[in-house]
């Protein structure tokens, strides 16, 4: 039975254990939601305006500062946009090293989210630091947390010079190339964390959380034969039923993605939401596994066979499981590259010749498709830039999912404290990144 007089307000000014600042207001009257607002409360830094007039080749190091955790995603997406603009084709060695750098980011960033942000929810703890050292399982997970993150961190440091705002990758190549011996040394470290990730996959495979949106939604991401996050064609598929069947898939060239994304103004949020071709959209690990799990590394497909049977999935919590599988893929794909590298050729970055041009770069950031479009003047300076980040694309689905979850919990007479716990868990499953979402002013698509 409902309590018809159930009235309360939830006001979470700062949601914890997510990247950046977000807030949530829910007004419940007579056990019904009267108002619900999920908003990005980061203060903007106006990067889209700040890059105007600056040299295009200098943009990647500046826009890396949009986000601390996925800085190397901004770095590589903007480098791609500049290279496309000036018809620079990076060498195969450059692409291999970029992939290696990027797998390091995926390992580190997904591990931060799964172990530090999400795992405490599964164990009923506030923080990973509260895990009980005397409990063998919790002790092991605490160790896993930091050793997995460290290997991802080291992979990015060895290849890029630093794991945050990597200084070596640049337009046309690398300013300083990594040492072959250091790269080779990472193989054993990667092999050592593999069993830890199999353990993590099992935990998220057994997790019971389930939240399926009532409305149909689209999953979008880059589709490439080696699931490298950096290359490919955009693929989008729409869910047709709550069991996870996906149909109506489309392939879209990177440079056309902008035409499909429709910006939605959310008056109470510092950032903008997006729809994909008119429908609700989601990007990120869940979307990527839904559209291209067949392209994962063959060792990953073998070891994660049981977990992969769950995809495609429309259970939003499976974003966690999908991230765990992507860590395994990043380990296996990195080992494959490291084993295959026999030398680091002394290549200097390819030089650009300034001209009036437009360049588009799309890569899969840890949280989903990241889009850069740069209009460049004849002198090589930026005339105009547009940047679309994953959390902006997910914002509408996040709010819709919270609404449906709260409605469901209210129908079961759930108390306010429990609602807060469940809602925060759901928000964390999306792994939103507010630093990214609050960098720009507006994007208008014609």
């Amino acid at each position, binding site marked *: 039975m409902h309590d018809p007089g159930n009235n309360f307000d939830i006001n979470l*000014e*700062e949601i*914890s*254990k997510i*990247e*950046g*600042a977000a807030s949530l207001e829910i007004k419940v009257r007579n056990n019904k939601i009267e108002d619900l607002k999920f908003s990005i409360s*980061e*203060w*903007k*830094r*106006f*990067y889209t*305006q*700040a890059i*105007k007039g600056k040299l295009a080749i200098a943009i990647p190091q*500046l826009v890396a*500062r*949009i*986000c*601390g*955790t996925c*800085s190397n995603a901004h770095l590589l997406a903007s480098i791609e946009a500049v290279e496309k603009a000036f018809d620079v084709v990076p060498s195969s060695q450059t692409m291999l090293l970029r992939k290696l750098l990027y797998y390091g980011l995926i390992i*580190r960033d997904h591990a*931060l989210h799964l172990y*530090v942000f999400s795992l*405490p929810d599964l164990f009923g703890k*506030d*923080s*990973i*630091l*509260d895990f009980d050292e005397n409990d063998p399982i919790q002790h092991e997970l*605490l160790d896993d947390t*930091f*050793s997995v*993150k*460290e290997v991802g*961190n080291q992979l990015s440091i060895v290849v890029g010079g*630093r*794991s*945050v*705002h990597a200084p070596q990758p640049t337009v046309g190549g690398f300013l300083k190339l990594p040492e072959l011996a250091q790269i080779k040394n990472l193989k054993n470290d990667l092999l050592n964390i593999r069993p830890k990730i199999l353990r993590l996959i099992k935990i998220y495979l057994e997790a019971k959380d389930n939240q399926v949106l009532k409305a149909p939604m689209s999953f979008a991401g880059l589709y490439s034969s080696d699931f490298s996050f950096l290359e490919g064609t955009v693929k989008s598929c729409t869910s047709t039923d709550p069991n996870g069947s996906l149909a109506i898939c489309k392939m879209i060239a990177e440079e056309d993605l902008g035409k499909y994304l429709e910006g939605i103004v959310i008056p109470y949020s*510092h950032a903008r939401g997006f729809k994909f071709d008119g429908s609700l959209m989601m990007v990120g690990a869940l979307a990527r596994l839904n559209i291209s799990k067949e392209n994962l590394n063959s060792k990953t497909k073998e070891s994660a066979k049981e977990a992969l049977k769950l995809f495609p999935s429309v259970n939003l919590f499976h974003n966690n499981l999908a991230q765990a599988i992507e860590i395994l893929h990043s380990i296996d794909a990195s080992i494959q590259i490291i084993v295959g590298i026999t030398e680091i050729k002394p290549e200097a970055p390819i030089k650009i010749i300034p001209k009036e041009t437009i360049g588009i770069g799309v890569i899969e950031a840890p949280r989903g498709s990241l889009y850069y479009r740069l209009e460049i003047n004849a002198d090589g300076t930026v005339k105009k830039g547009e940047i679309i980040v994953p959390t902006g694309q997910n914002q509408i689905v996040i709010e819709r999912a919270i609404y449906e979850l709260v409605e469901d919990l209210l129908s079961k007479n759930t108390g306010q404290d429990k609602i807060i716990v469940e809602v*925060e868990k759901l928000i964390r499953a999306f792994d939103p990144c507010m*630093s990214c979402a609050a960098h720009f*002013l507006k994007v208008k698509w014609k």
Partner: protein
Amino acid sequence: MDKKLRIGWFSFTCCEDSTIIFTELLNTHYRDWLKKIEFVHARVLMKKNTKEIKEMDVAFVEGAISSDGQEAKLKKIREKAKILVAIGSCAINGSPSNQRNFFNQANIEEIKPILERFKYKEKVLKVSEVVKVDEIVPGCPMNETIFLDLMKKYLI
């Protein structure tokens, strides 16, 4: 047993790169630090104490100040912290989060509706323009060696 060092980690307007470096430093230091440190505030690590600022031995502050609300919170942190450390370029110099301070008129006009709607401060401030800063860890992101030296100094 010695009392643990009570620390808080706070992020204002920035990309939180130093938060990430801090969580990466935990990879190799957490066993030692957990014995010696009590985390009083750290939104990235825990939910507790996200509403009220508590007494701390050391407060680490990253990011620049964009709003009156942020300014008031920073002053509160200063009141409650024996030592305040400004972390990274945005906290110490304001940059690059203060890039709107240097915009031309056309760019300012473009961003004006947002500044007004959400009541942004006219200029983005560095931390030392609002409160007294005791220590700094420069860098974008913060320099790990300088940070570790500072930790050693206060963990004795």
